[in-house]
């Protein structure tokens, strides 16, 4: 009996040691939808970045570089984009890739009936045609500067010969089991709920992939992801500052910071008379100690904000603009100008004696955001505002409160494409402008920003926007986060980018 148990123990240990070493293992929190046109969540987007290249991809400066397109020309005052495609590119099933695939992909994207989630990104496209087998021409309805960047963001090209006439959202043989792309790795095996295994694509048009494969493992719990990273079952886990303690002393893991094109903020419902006056929002910038939040809650892994353009957009973020620093007395002065003064009890009241009272919502379950919301509440309380903190599950917060406009203020974040265009977020009446912000000057800057193609001219426009946002802030920007990548030390070749953009370069990754 004892011998049998010993033999079993040895066998179990040996089985554990026989895992492949040059296969990159990345976590997902659920099964992905492997179709970039309908991918609903971050995990799906990440897998799709490897399988489905776009026409272009972002380089380390977040500027577009050739991918499936070898070169391009912009003519007709920014209205026409002509792409010369790479020749001899093959789909993972061996079929040739042609201009028809690109036309099919974008005609599907801009058709709202198709169920694509990328309609809004590309609604500037008036027409897209295949000039010949290797040339595609896009005609835009008006100049749209982020166009190229968006082509390299989530818009992977999909095969016409497999998807034409199919219901994109329900075509599970493709979306869930055997997606066919043109990327450096192709899917070889899917175990529902457990893993997606990718092997190198021998026909890949770019540099030869260095890894023996990539495995995406479904690990829903972040603590387990961290444990699996430490035990070598995962090679790369994006973590939050509160996870760092568990990784600090691990010699096999290094923490890398990448700029994230995100800004964390407090949305104010500008339909609420409390926040209508720009002075009130301006005052809050002085009242909240954002430096303390960055140092205390985010352990320093974030940049101090000036407006809504994050520092990650280096080409546009103007460093010379002085940010608003914590100064509660200044906040009180500005609030006094707006008609809010502290009474004998220290409560901020208006001329009628009504208190400045509102509730601040935050999604439940993420310690970083919950602690930040608490800090904001405490800072605002200190200047006499009566702020109630309300935590809600994220889906409920968005669907029942944010989208319906039934909120006073909430702490949330925007992740945008690597371009400063924020028209849909902050221009009057736009679909993502749930703060109901409206400023004609900002509208004009945001419109010109997306319609101007010259980088130099855009820089000036967005600098003006940054300046404008200091006096009439659409939201209270709290920080620009850093993406914290916990990576096993033997993983090399990862470009200095956030994971979304880095995975566009997966053929360069290696495990040595």
């Amino acid at each position: 009996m004892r011998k049998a148990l010993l033999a079993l123990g040895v066998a179990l240990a040996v089985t554990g040691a026989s895992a492949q070493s040059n296969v990159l293992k990345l976590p997902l929190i659920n099964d992905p939808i492997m179709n970039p046109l309908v991918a609903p969540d971050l995990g799906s987007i990440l897998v799709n970045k490897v399988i489905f290249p776009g026409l272009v991809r972002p380089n380390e400066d977040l500027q577009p570089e050739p991918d499936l397109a070898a070169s391009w020309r912009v003519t007709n005052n920014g209205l026409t984009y002509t792409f010369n495609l790479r020749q001899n590119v093959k789909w993972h099933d061996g079929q040739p890739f042609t201009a028809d695939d690109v036309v099919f992909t974008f005609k599907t994207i801009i058709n709202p009936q198709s169920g694509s989630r990328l309609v809004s990104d590309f609604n500037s496209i008036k027409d897209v045609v295949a000039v010949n087998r290797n040339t595609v021409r896009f005609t835009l309805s008006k100049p749209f500067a982020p166009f190229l960047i968006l082509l390299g963001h989530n818009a992977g090209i999909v095969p016409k010969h497999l998807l034409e006439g199919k219901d994109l959202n329900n075509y599970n043989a493709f979306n869930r089991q055997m997606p066919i792309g043109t990327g450096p790795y192709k899917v070889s095996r899917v175990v529902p709920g457990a893993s997606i295994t990718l092997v190198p694509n021998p026909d890949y048009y770019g540099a030869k992939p260095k890894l023996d494969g990539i495995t995406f493992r479904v690990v829903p719990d972040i603590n387990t992801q961290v444990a699996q990273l430490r035990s070598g079952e995962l090679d790369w886990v994006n973590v939050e500052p509160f996870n760092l303690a568990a990784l600090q002393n691990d010699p096999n893991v290094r923490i890398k910071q990448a700029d994230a094109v995100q800004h964390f903020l407090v949305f104010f419902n500008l339909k609420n008379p409390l926040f209508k006056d720009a002075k009130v929002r301006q005052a809050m910038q002085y009242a909240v100690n954002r430096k303390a939040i960055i140092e205390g809650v985010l352990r320093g892994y974030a940049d101090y904000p000036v407006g809504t353009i994050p520092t990650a957009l280096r080409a546009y973020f103007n460093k010379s603009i002085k940010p608003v620093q914590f100064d509660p007395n200044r906040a009180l002065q500005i609030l006094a100008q707006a008609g809010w003064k502290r009474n004998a009890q220290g409560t901020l009241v208006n001329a009628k004696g009504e208190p400045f009272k509102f509730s601040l919502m935050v999604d439940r379950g993420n310690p970083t955001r919950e602690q930040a919301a608490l800090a904001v509440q405490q800072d605002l309380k200190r200047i006499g505002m009566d702020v109630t903190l309300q935590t809600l599950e994220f889906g409920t917060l968005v669907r029942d409160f944010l989208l319906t406009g039934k909120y006073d203020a909430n702490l949330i974040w925007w992740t945008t494409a690597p371009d400063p265009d924020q028209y849909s977020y902050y221009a009057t009446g736009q679909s993502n402008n749930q703060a109901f912000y409206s400023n004609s000057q900002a509208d004009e800057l945001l419109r010109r920003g997306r319609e101007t193609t010259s980088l130099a001219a855009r820089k000036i426009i967005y600098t003006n926007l940054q300046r404008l946002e200091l006096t009439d802030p659409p939201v209270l920007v709290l920080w620009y986060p850093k993406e914290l990548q916990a990576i096993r030390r033997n993983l090399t070749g990862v470009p200095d980018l956030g994971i979304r953009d880095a995975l566009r370069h997966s053929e360069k990754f290696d495990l040595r």
Partner: protein
Amino acid sequence: MPVPYILRRLWHALIVLAVVCVVTFIVVRLAPGGPSLLADPNLGTVERAAIAERLGLNDSVPEQFAKFAAGVVRGDLGTSFLYGTPTLQVIGQRLPNTLLLAGTALLVTVLVAVPLGLMCGLRPNSLLDRLLSTVSLVFVAVPVFWFALMLIILFAVVLRVLPAGGMNAPGMEGNLLDSLRHLILPTLVLASATIAEVLRYTRSSARTAAMQDYVRTAKAKGVGPLRLQYKHILKNALLPVLTAIGLQLPRLVGGAAVTETIFAWPGMGRLSVEAALGRDYPLILAITLVVALAVVLFNLLVDLLYPVVDPRVRTEA
């Protein structure tokens, strides 16, 4: 067992399932939030409208219920919002994994808890009894996620002898030894709570049986201790234990959510968490119905096993 009795039980089961159907539908719709496919604040209005239309959310709630009920009658429990596949197909992929984990945990539970419970019940207040009582109390009280994480840190991170999660190492699917390695920790966690409960049940049941008059009579008649324990006490003590185990079964199938999430085990428990967080209405309803069906069937099974164990029940039925 008479056939009308079984038929009557099946008819009751159908009523229970119908009630579960209606109540779950109402409760799910009353819950705040909505399908996670719509909860992305980055989505534009056009995309959001198209998704709502595709998911059938633009119909009125009574219309949605009518469609759902008609589907159930036909054996079609709808299409999952998240997976875009028939819900029964999604469940079909996950159920075997849960049955494997739950089955192993149950086997371990029975093998460990019943003999230990009997030993404690027969020797009350012995050192073993006191020790196991304390240990089982601890396991009932310890939060599952904490215990699971401690095991992962010890065996996967520090000692590196067992994997931290998953059913198989990628590429090792179908390898029995690899599956066994992955099964050990989640089974330990899942079984720890049930062992504690079943052990306590068995102990008190054996204790009660040991104090019955017939045991004293048997003892007086000179029946040996072994025969007394196994022939007279064990047989009578097992009936309540069977009920206790029966009660654990549905919990193992439907309620292993935390264990499955922490160990990245692709089973029903994790699926139900996914469905609930994603407000995948059809999937939530289908899982609830399948679990309800399991509860009803397990209860029926336990009822059918009773007469096998206890002849008195046979005559009553």
